[in-house]
Each structure stands twice: as structure tokens, then as C-alpha cells.
């Protein structure tokens, strides 16, 4: 099993905005994912400790574009002109810290806080979709912006606890099936709400049982392993101080096997890389064995490099040492 120098993924990442990826129609259909894509790309580069490879000019260009994604209601769309949504608002805030540019945080915080409903849940936008992803975006954004007082933190936690299932794990809404990605959203939210009063051992056992024979984690029983779950669930184990409950070496090996020889990391071995899986693969490796790979550790609660988080006052009491 070969082991690339992870920094070899840098050219893949740097090239992402240059190429319009003419061979893939998918590029044009993902116009609405530009803010998210920016976050995954820049964060991956930061994880490789190569933020300064991006020219000042480029950073300014990106910052200018990012600011234009903010709408009148304070929220951000996935690209300029797109309607606001809590997920894109959250991505924009994260990206702004990576780029070291300032947005109208006051307005953004108001938009995010307005998404909380009476039962503590968060909606994605005014059209009413509710989901634990949005609770996480809400708690993370407002914690980073030091605006937690704008929401009811206790109610937010209570809603998430309703998402817990008999198997000890969490789904996206009450009654939904337990799912690895929602483990991240729910544990992350509860951690930021400072309320981890649920059966942690049961959840950790469920996560433990997600590890497949090849070392990768799947999201639910009988499903295929996927590199992104390495992040979603291993980061949760870190927050719960149960990192030893999975075979860390096997997980590490699996992520390395998912590398694409042309650069980047794919969802599973021998598949095509994409920026989403590249970021989450690198982020998980930074937690599993950051020193060995010379990676900038990504904080498990905020999914930002710790080096950047230490300059954000709102985050300080939540940062894992």
C-alpha cells in the first residue's frame, strides 16, 4: 500500500478554480456550491500548511467575491445572487476566517439567529426545512461570532436530543434513522451547547460498529465505507474523548488508499477525487496523525485549523487542546 506525500495534493487543490473542468458538466450545475467549494478548497490548503501559496491578489479577489455573496437579509447564498441559506452563511463565515477578510458579521449573526424556531430547532431559510445540519450551522456560526446570546442554547440542545435513536446514535430530525454525518452535526451542536448529557458510550459503540473490514467507516449498517465519514465520526469521537474506540491505524490506512494518483482524495479507493472528499480526508488525517503527515490540525468542533481558531475569541473555550 503506497503512501504519498500528502503535499502532492496541493497542485490538485490550487488548480480547482483555474480549470472550468470542461470535461464535466457537473461544474456548471454546481454554481450554487461555490461558497462551500471555496471553504473546502482553502481549508484543505490550510490543512496542508500552504495558505501562503495562494497569492495576496487571489485572496483579495476571493474576499471581494465572498462579500458580494451576502444578501440584504444578512445571510449568504451559495454564490453571488443566490438566495440566503444558513449553510452558506456558515460556510461564508468559516471561509472569511480562512481568508482573513471581514464580512458584515452583525447582519450575518442576525440572519442565523432568526432561523431558530420556538422548539429550539433551526430552519435552513424562510421556506421551512428543519434539520440537525442547520442546528450545527447555527451554533457554530454564533459561537464563532460571539453572538450566542441571540439564541436559546438550551432549547437548541433539547431539540437535538429528540434526534437520538434506540441504537444510541443520531438522525437528522426526530424519528430519522441514525446516520454518521448527522452524528457530527448532533454531537457538534451538543458540544457547543455544553450539554453532552446523553449515553456517550452507546453512541461510541455505534460508531465503533461503523468500521468496516477495510478500515473505512460507513454511515449506517450495511452501507459502503466512505472517506467523508472518517471526518464526520472521528471528529465526534475526539469531542467525546473516545478516540480509541475505533482502530485508528486501519482508518488512517483507508484514507491513504482513497488517494487519487492524479491528486486529491476520493470517497473510496479507485474512485475519482473531488474537493469535498479531499478536504475531509485530510482533516481526518490531521486528527488521526497530524504530526506524521505534517498537517495543520483541524479542530473537531469547528472544522477550522486550530491555528486560525486561536485568534477567534468566541471559540477559545471550545477549542480542543
Amino acid at each position, binding site marked *: 500500500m503506497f503512501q504519498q506525500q500528502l503535499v502532492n495534493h496541493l497542485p490538485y487543490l490550487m488548480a480547482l478554480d483555474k480549470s*472550468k473542468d*470542461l*470535461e*464535466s*458538466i457537473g*461544474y*456548471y*450545475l*454546481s*454554481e*450554487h456550491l461555490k461558497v462551500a467549494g471555496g471553504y473546502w478548497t482553502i481549508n484543505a490548503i490550510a490543512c496542508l500548511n500552504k495558505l501562503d501559496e495562494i497569492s495576496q491578489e487571489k485572496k483579495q479577489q476571493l474576499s471581494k467575491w465572498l462579500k458580494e455573496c451576502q444578501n440584504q437579509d444578512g445571510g449568504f*447564498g*451559495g454564490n453571488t*445572487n*443566490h*438566495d440566503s*441559506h444558513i449553510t452558506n452563511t456558515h460556510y461564508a463565515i468559516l471561509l472569511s476566517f480562512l481568508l482573513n477578510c471581514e464580512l458584515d458579521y452583525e447582519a450575518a449573526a442576525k440572519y442565523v439567529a432568526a432561523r431558530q424556531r420556538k422548539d429550539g430547532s433551526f430552519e*435552513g*431559510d424562510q*421556506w*421551512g*426545512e428543519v*434539520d440537525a445540519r442547520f442546528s450545527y450551522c447555527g451554533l457554530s456560526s454564533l459561537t464563532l461570532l460571539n453572538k450566542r446570546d441571540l439564541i436559546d442554547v438550551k432549547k437548541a440542545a433539547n431539540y437535538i436530543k429528540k434526534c437520538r*435513536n*434506540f*441504537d*444510541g446514535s443520531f*438522525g*437528522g*430530525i426526530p*424519528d*430519522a*434513522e*441514525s*446516520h454518521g454525518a448527522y452524528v457530527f452535526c448532533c454531537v457538534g451542536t451538543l458540544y457547543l451547547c455544553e450539554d453532552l448529557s446523553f*449515553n456517550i458510550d*452507546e453512541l461510541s459503540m455505534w460508531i*465503533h*460498529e461503523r*468500521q468496516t473490514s477495510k478500515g473505512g467507516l460507513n454511515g*449506517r*449498517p*450495511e*452501507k459502503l465505507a*466512505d472517506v467523508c465519514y472518517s471526518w464526520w465520526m472521528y471528529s465526534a469521537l475526539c469531542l467525546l474523548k473516545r478516540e*480509541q*474506540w*475505533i*482502530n485508528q491505524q*486501519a482508518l488512517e490506512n483507508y484514507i491513504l488508499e482513497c488517494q*487519487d494518483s492524479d491528486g486529491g482524495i*476520493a*470517497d473510496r479507493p*479507485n*474512485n*475519482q477525487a*473531488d474537493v*469535498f*472528499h479531499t478536504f475531509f480526508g485530510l482533516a481526518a488525517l490531521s486528527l488521526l496523525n497530524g504530526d506524521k503527515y505534517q498537517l495543520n490540525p483541524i479542530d473537531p468542533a469547528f472544522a477550522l485549523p486550530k491555528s486560525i481558531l486561536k485568534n477567534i475569541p468566541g471559540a477559545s473555550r471550545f477549542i480542543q487542546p
Partner: protein
Amino acid sequence: MHGQSKSRTETLSEEEIKQRAEKGQQILDSLDYFFKVRKNQVNQPEDQLAFSELMAKLCPEIATIYNYRREVLQTKFDHLGGLLTESKSIDAYKQLVKLIQSEFMLIAILLKQHPKSYTLWTHRQWMVLRSQEIDQLISSINQDNQLKLIEAIKQEYELCSKMLDRDERNFHVWNYRNWLSSICAFGREDEFTKKKIEQNFSNFSAYHFRSKFFMKNYNQPENIIERIKTDKILGLLPLPFDRLKEETELIQQAIYIQPKEHGVYLYHRWLIGVVQPFGVTKVEKISNDSVTLQFNRAVTNVENSFELFNNENALKIINVRVEGNNVIITFEEQQLNNLKVRILNQIYKNGALDTMISEDEFSKFLIPSEIDVTFENEGFKYTNTIQQEFLGAIHDINKYLDENIEFIKQVIEEEKENRFPYIQILYLFQFKLRTQKLIDASKSSEIVKEALEHCDKLKKIQNDHQAQFLFEFWSQF
């Protein structure tokens, strides 16, 4: 993004690259125009619905397109609704029905290509809610309502069935279907989940929703009060006992047929766990104003479950607090000579809808007991006597548990290299240990011994992390 095989990456000819670039540019130009329309920077197209339908088909994942479409639809709904209210216009009514039907059709077409799109499911949900409102409006005007929301919802269930036939684990569909039952329940959850399980024993999504159905259908306080009338103490179980046994046979069969699947063990584990009794296993600590009781699992809703006496005089309880498996009861400070604690199952005793609940299983199978504490020089001694009436039920559940332990032992015999049944038996031993602590803690060591033996066997067949972990877990006893 997911599942893109590398070997399938096409190498395109120059002509094909050019075509794709053109198509791509077309999309960008269309989006450009769409946003100008959205911001009223150009005139609205004559047919806004047709225009947004085109955009949706071009870029099905862009939420803003649906936001715009919903704004247009809402305007039309409001306008037509107004006409209907004012003049009972048949034409307005017909237009409303057509609008709704074609929207559902459009979303269904798009869902075929994008069955996991949050955007599309959210839009469909929004349409159901609007249909509900419009249906109410029509009914208030005309008793002979032909919109027939119920028929429409039935169609939605049909859609869910078809989509689950194509992908039985699509959680968007399962969630949507679950949500529909809050609008209009047809009470077929039992049938439907059973059908999906019989189609494929490793459909964990079906087991998951089946467990939810059981809890909603059988474990509400009103259900329990009814069951107690005929089944006495076993009525407290979250599932009627014969239903439980029926269901256990079903899952045992599934395990027998597909012992290498994971989900079947999870459901088996849940079924057995959900009916286990819970109660006080230890008096942890006593002070002159508090007593700490340890339960065999975490509990909730504890406030009304205790009575305290000192020298036969009732003590006033000031506060009851839960900390993990412990419950801390504080009372007015005094010299304790002869403390008596009664743990009550209020639902069984008084038919009160409230009682202590075992936190994770939501079970109300709390075993009432009486604790008698005497004080000595340095500490205290106590006896914990389970209410006689309950012993029979505990025995029945224990027998059921033992039968399942035997069953898993048989699976182990057949499946010597399969770690799942080993892990399963260790879970079942955990249940057994909890109940043993309730009845007679002194006999617990035998269970721990047998569990450790199985840990050893697990390590031998697969010396992986889980084996080591379970071994350490059981060693702590």
C-alpha cells in the same frame, strides 16, 4: 461527487469538449438571465411557471430557482383562492386543482433523476402543506370537496413505495413518508415495514421505522393503562408480550438466514433490551438530608416515584435529581434512625399516566421495591425487597432473555468465525447482569465469568480492536 469510478472517466474528443463547453456556457447564460428576472432587473417572463420549470429542469439542484417558483405559485394560490372565496368560481377551482397536480408531477419527474435532493423533497413538502390549506379553503366553501386531499396523500404514499422499491435505504423517502403520517395516517406502518423486511432482511431503515411504530402504537401511557387491565404487570412492557415474541421469531429467522448482516443484530438487541425490567440495585450514599440510589440503568421522570419514611414518619421530599444511573433525593435535614424508601410504579399502582421511565428505552417497566435501612457505627445496612407481585413478570422476561441467549449460542455454533453473534451475546449478558443485580447481586459473578469466556473466544476468532475493547469492558466487573 460520490461514487465516481476513476476507470470510467471518459476521454473526450475535441469536438465533444467543444460541445460540452457550449452547453456549459448556455447554462451559465440561462442562470444569468434567471437572476436578472429574480431581481426584477428585466421584465418578468410572460409565463413565470413555464420559465422556472425550464430552469428547474436545467439546474435541478439550485434552491433559488424553487424559491422563485414558490413565490410565483403562492401568488397564484392567493389570487385563485380569493376568487374562489368571493365568487365560488368553478374556473378558479379547476385552475387550483390543475396547478397543484402539475406541480406534484413536475417534482416527481425531477425526483426520478435526483432522489436524494433535499431541495426537491423540501419543495414537495411545501406543496403538501399548501394543498392542505387549499383543501381546507375549498371545503369551507363547498361541502362536496373534490380536491380530496386524502386521495392526494394516498398518491404520496404510493410514490414513497415506488421510490423505496428502487432504493430501500433512501432516508429522504422514509422521512417524508413518516412526515406524511402526521398529516394523514393510514395506519399501515406495521404492514409496510414488515413487507420491506421480508423483501430484504438487511433493510435496517425498515427495522428502524418499525421500532418507532411499535413505540408510538404500544408504548403511550394510555395504551399501557389499557393493557394492565388484562395483562397485569406484563402490561407495563412497551410491547404486548405476545407481539414481542412474534416479532422476536421474525428477527431470529432473519438472523438465521443472514447471520453476516449487521442490522438484524441491532434490531434483535433492541427488542430484547426494550422489555428489560429496571429498578434500584444499590443504596449508594446516605446523609442526614439526602439518599442516593443507584438504578440498573439511567432513568428519567423521577419526581413522583418515591416515598420516604424515618421511624415510620413520612419525610417531605425537597428535590429529586438524576445523575447518570443515580438518583439523589433530598429531604428535610434530620437524624435518621430507621430510613425506609419506597420506589413506586405510579402507572401500575394508581393508573396515573405518569411514572418513572427508563431513559433510553422509554420503558415503564419499573420494579417497585421497598428499601429498609438500619444504621450502625460507621455506616448503614439495607435490604431491598421487590414487590412480590412483580417477581412473576421478572421471571417471564428473564426466561425470554435466556431463550434468546440460547438462540445466539446456537448461531455461534454455526458461525464460528463471525464476530457479530459474539458481540450480540455480550450485549445480552449485559441485560442479564442488570436484571441479576436487581434480584440478587451476589449471583452476578457467574454472568461476568461467562461473558469474559466469550470475550476470550471473540479475541481468538478476531483479535481486533472491538474484541479487546469488550474484554476490558467486562473486566471492570
